């Protein structure tokens, strides 16, 4: 576990008025690992994602991505730094084909601006060809290449989830944050997702995942952190966490 840390979260606190959604939460994610963040509804998981990706500013604390602070940066800047997310509710771009959706995912690592695009300069055209090719390759990775030219929001639900994943992967992120990627998937689809994610990990991708499907979490995670009422109450391997009394209490209520 001496992998270099790609993401370091230090004492992050987020208050909404009097309510503390996150209280001094610290943990880190090592390069090439799958870390799961679990906890009952309202534990602060999505708030943490929003803080990490620049949508919310923490009340206190620090977040470092590959040694660089992300606090105060805009979401698009953080994406450029190599951390990208998916959403709990699917947010594909309307009216765009699957391929175009994934091509937007390449945005953060390409640079053609207004002038270059409006004048169709050679540099922009070369980049466009490259984006198209790479986006197609990513679609193939998740098995959606046959549907490249269909409108993304017209795909079946499970495939929309995969498309969101592909869109995020297209940015070639250092770390990807998945917000309930298995929500609404059937057992078969969840299984597919599980092997897909393990495969990406084996190819060097770092993943921080929030998920309610415990089967999936236990199967793919290298380590799990547990939040409850905004506090980190446990961390460890899937086996450790599964048997931790505090975790059992948080999920099942106080045992007599």
């Amino acid at each position, binding site marked *: 576990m001496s992998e270099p840390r790609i993401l370091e979260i230090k004492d992050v606190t987020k208050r909404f008025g009097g309510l503390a959604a996150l209280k001094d939460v610290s943990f880190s994610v090592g390069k090439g690992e799958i870390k799961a963040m679990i906890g009952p509804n309202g534990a602060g998981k999505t708030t943490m994602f929003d803080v990490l*990706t620049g*949508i919310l500013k923490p009340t206190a604390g620090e977040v470092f991505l590959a040694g660089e602070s992300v606090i105060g940066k*805009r*979401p*698009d800047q953080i*994406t*450029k730094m190599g951390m*990208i*997310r998916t*959403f709990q509710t699917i*947010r*594909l*771009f*309307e*009216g*765009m*084909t699957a*391929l*175009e959706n994934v*091509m*937007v*995912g*390449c*945005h*953060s*690592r*390409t640079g*053609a*601006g*207004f002038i270059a*695009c*409006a*004048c*169709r300069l050679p540099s*922009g055209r070369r*980049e*466009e060809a490259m*984006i198209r090719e790479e986006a*197609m390759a990513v679609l*193939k990775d998740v098995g959606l*290449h*046959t549907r*490249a*030219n269909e409108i993304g929001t017209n795909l079946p639900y499970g495939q929309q989830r995969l498309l969101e994943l592909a*869109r*995020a992967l297209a*940015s070639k992120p250092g770390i990807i944050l998945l917000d309930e990627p298995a929500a609404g998937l059937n057992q078969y689809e969840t299984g597919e997702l599980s092997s897909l994610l393990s495969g990406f990990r084996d190819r060097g991708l770092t993943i921080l995942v929030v998920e309610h499907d415990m089967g999936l979490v236990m199967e793919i995670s290298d380590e799990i952190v547990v939040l409850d009422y905004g506090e980190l109450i446990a961390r460890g391997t899937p086996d450790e966490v599964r048997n931790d009394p505090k975790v059992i209490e948080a999920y099942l209520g106080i045992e007599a």
Partner: protein
Amino acid sequence: MDKELARPLDTDKRDYRTLMVVGAFILLIPLWAKFIPGDVLHMDIVNLMVLTGVYACAVVGLNLLVGYAGQISLGHAAFFGIGAYTTAILCTHMHWFPTWLGVIAGAVLAGAVGWLVGKPVLRLKGNYLAMATLGLGEIAFILFQQVKGLTGGTVGILDIPPLSIFGLKFDTDLKFFFLIWVVILVLLLVSINLIKSRVGRGLRALHSSEVAADAMGVATGRYKAQVFVLSAAFAGLGGAMFAHFQKYINPESFTLALSILFITMVVVGGMGNIWGGLVGVVILTFLPSVIQALPQWIPGLPHGLSNFSNYELVLYGALLILFMMFMPKGVAFGLSRAADYTEVRARHFRDRQKARKMEGR
């Protein structure tokens, strides 16, 4: 195999092909307008097409802003007016000032004002943005009226010299027609390029979901400001051309009615469809003349229709409502669906032929 499946409908090339066809068709209008004498149609086609072109400058840009980036503006008459007044003031107060440079200055100044206003205003969304831009239009209108030293107040500016570029004077409708439509074709080319690019995808993405676009690394704030500036500059360019064509301007030309007209053109033609803007401008610019000519075409119609201008806002309002309700994607959407359909049919036909040939061998 994969390549085959990934083969997109060739809309890429189609837009450029359409541009060529549309360009050729429009530039030939004066020719066939000669064969249909004006006193049959009771309207001056070339003159109307110049006006269409002038408005099209603004509408093509506005469509990028409204249709693609999803940001509303109810104040684009302001930029149109800024373009018009800039060149009019420069070229009448300083007679030596080259008119072509005045037009460029008009576009640049409109863009600059767009940048100044757009930065803060574009943080607003939906209705709030509509209100803010509405205010912008009103402020500009009042300034045109009240800064009398520069703008001539309600009288406006008279005797604006005709546009001349390197000694070539555009002092007739026909000459101006060619100039303005070459300009439009360039603006259309630029717009198509933009939409088909990384930036165009970014704009469409932020239209759909700003949060998701942000998360994908699209600098949404900057993109919105940039497309606002671009649309303001296009409108300014149109306004400047308008000033030199009409040779006089006054504040009444740049009221809320014009902003509404621009939006109506975009909606009627088709939001988020580059050809939509164009179709909308043609329809709505010709509409008043068509309505006025109706009594001459169809004997027995009351002549009361000829004071149409009193009712034009009513008509635009009604059109906006009807299109929003029944045809929110505008006229051009239907046209592009038809084009998609023919292309799919054509591809099937080609594939069948290929298959037949293979079998033959």
